């Protein structure tokens, strides 16, 4: 029983991370018709920007707080990521740690949002409706910007810490509940509620739902849909960036291959859940997260096979995904 609770919490936490990527990917593909292979890079940049700014801000706060604190070089390069050793027995107050964490998340998400804006304006903008060109250009972005990460922060993985206040484990009966996982689940739920409200209650949401069906008809009622494309792409980027930022402390390791791995999961969710379907990406992410930990626990060797198998089965029997939109695109 305890193991099952532990697994479910882990699986839901994985699902929450996948959802952050998949929700953006799904709407970008469904509404704009853009197959975005650069999504993983945005995730990766979110992760590195978070780690970099977290350590940079924390170092400065700690050095200002304690005169005897000692910087510890974790990893040196152009944008050095440098930890800090607090004086023995000392800690930063919770509030300070919280502010540092949130500030770092904001830096990461803001940075990736701007990356999304720039990508859309410079590259994606030119390839609407041209799928082969989209694949080439987004794959190109993926390769180049992943390499830029490696140039700046090096190709090797390096360990990082979780914020201290999220670092605990509670033992409930025989279940081990990792606090960070609970935090991820909460973030996932909050983001899901926000996205759902935007989609159902706001004008942007109305335009997105309309655009999922037919961008041309949206233009024909006097709406500059390209402006919405830019916003949606950047918002999707920011969500992926948030996913990356939250992912790194979870695994405790910063790796430049994290983007590609998570992108594949997100694509599977989009296929399984159905293009542009909010419910599809939500439930699909939970499903994939739970299945992932279940399989990793029972037959670890099968996890990749299982994911691809699920995708193939869905494509065979429900080509529009399990929650495919009940609309057919008009153009």
């Amino acid at each position, binding site marked *: 029983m305890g193991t099952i609770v532990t697994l479910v919490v882990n699986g839901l936490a994985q699902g929450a991370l996948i959802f952050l990527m998949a929700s953006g990917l799904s709407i970008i593909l469904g509404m704009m018709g853009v197959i975005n292979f650069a999504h993983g890079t945005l995730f990766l940049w979110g992760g590195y920007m978070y780690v970099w700014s977290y350590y940079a801000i924390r170092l400065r706060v700690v050095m200002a707080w304690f005169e005897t604190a000692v910087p510890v070089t974790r990893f040196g390069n152009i944008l050095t990521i440098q930890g800090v050793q607090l004086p023995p027995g000392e800690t930063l107050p919770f509030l300070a740690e919280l502010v540092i964490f949130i500030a770092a998340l904001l830096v990461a998400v803001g940075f990736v949002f701007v990356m999304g804006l720039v990508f859309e304006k410079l590259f994606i903008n030119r390839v609407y409706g041209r799928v082969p060109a989209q694949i080439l250009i987004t794959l190109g972005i993926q390769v180049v910007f992943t390499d830029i990460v490696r140039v700046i922060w090096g190709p090797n993985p390096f360990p990082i810490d979780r914020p201290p206040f999220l670092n605990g484990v509670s033992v409930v009966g025989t279940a081990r509940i990792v606090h960070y996982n609970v935090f991820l689940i909460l973030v996932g739920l909050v983001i899901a509620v926000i996205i759902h409200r935007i989609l159902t209650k706001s*004008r942007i949401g*109305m*335009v997105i*739902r*309309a655009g*999922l*069906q*037919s961008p*041309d*008809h949206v*233009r*024909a*009622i*006097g*709406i*500059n*849909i390209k402006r919405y494309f830019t916003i949606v792409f950047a918002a999707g980027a920011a969500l992926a960036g948030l996913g990356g930022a939250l992912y790194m402390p979870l695994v405790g390791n910063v790796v430049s291959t994290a983007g590609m791995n998570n992108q594949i999961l997100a694509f599977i969710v989009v296929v399984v859940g159905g293009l542009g379907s909010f419910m599809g990406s939500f439930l699909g992410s939970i499903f994939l997260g739970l299945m992932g930990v279940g399989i990793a626990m029972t037959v670890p060797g099968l996890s990749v096979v299982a994911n691809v198998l699920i995708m193939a089965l869905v494509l065979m029997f429900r080509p529009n995904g399990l929650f495919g*939109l*009940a*609309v057919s695109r*008009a153009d």
Partner: protein
Amino acid sequence: MQPLLKAENIVSYIGPYTILHDVSLEVTPGEAVVILGRNGAGKTTFLKTIMGLVHTRSGILEFDGETLVDKETHVIQRKGIGYVPEDYGIFDLLTVEENMRIAMWKEDAETKARCDWVLDLFPDLKLAYKRFAKTLSGGQRQMLSVGRALVNDNRILLVDEPSKGLAPVIIQTLAGALKEISRTTTVLLVEQNFAMACAVGQRFYIINEGKTVESGTMADLIQNKELQAVHLGI
């Protein structure tokens, strides 16, 4: 009087295909003009060309003296061109109300009044107001499409075959509504249903194989059985 809409020797294309070869037409303010022609003649393509959804290769296309060529669709629409597409262009994932609201240029008292007027014109829409549009019937979609194009203060209304696929009763309702609308708004109507065309139109153009081949007053066309037989298959 200066024409509100003017097309001269329009050539337009979709991808590698040239669809319109030579279309010329004028609509003066206050008129109701009908475009007739067989299936595949290029009527829909002409309306799409006006809306910038199909590209113009050559020719003059002007609205109120300003060129529409190479303008973006939303810019063209905002000049005051309401468009009712052949496939209705209704958004299934939006409610009827949202389908109306998304099209509003602004949500002021005048728009609200026009919206109420539309709901009185099509009581079906009022009944289904909060429902998702995917639950609407074909006739209701057509009403929503026409109604939606009327929420703004348009200067002209382009309507593409509103009678297509609809039952005779509904066609009558729509013909009545369009007649009513044409009292206050300039209308350019594509229509193959001759009764509907006669009920609404004052002048006509016939498009055949991407070219305007005939034009005149509706009264003339009603007399001219030969013309009807050649181009309309009546």
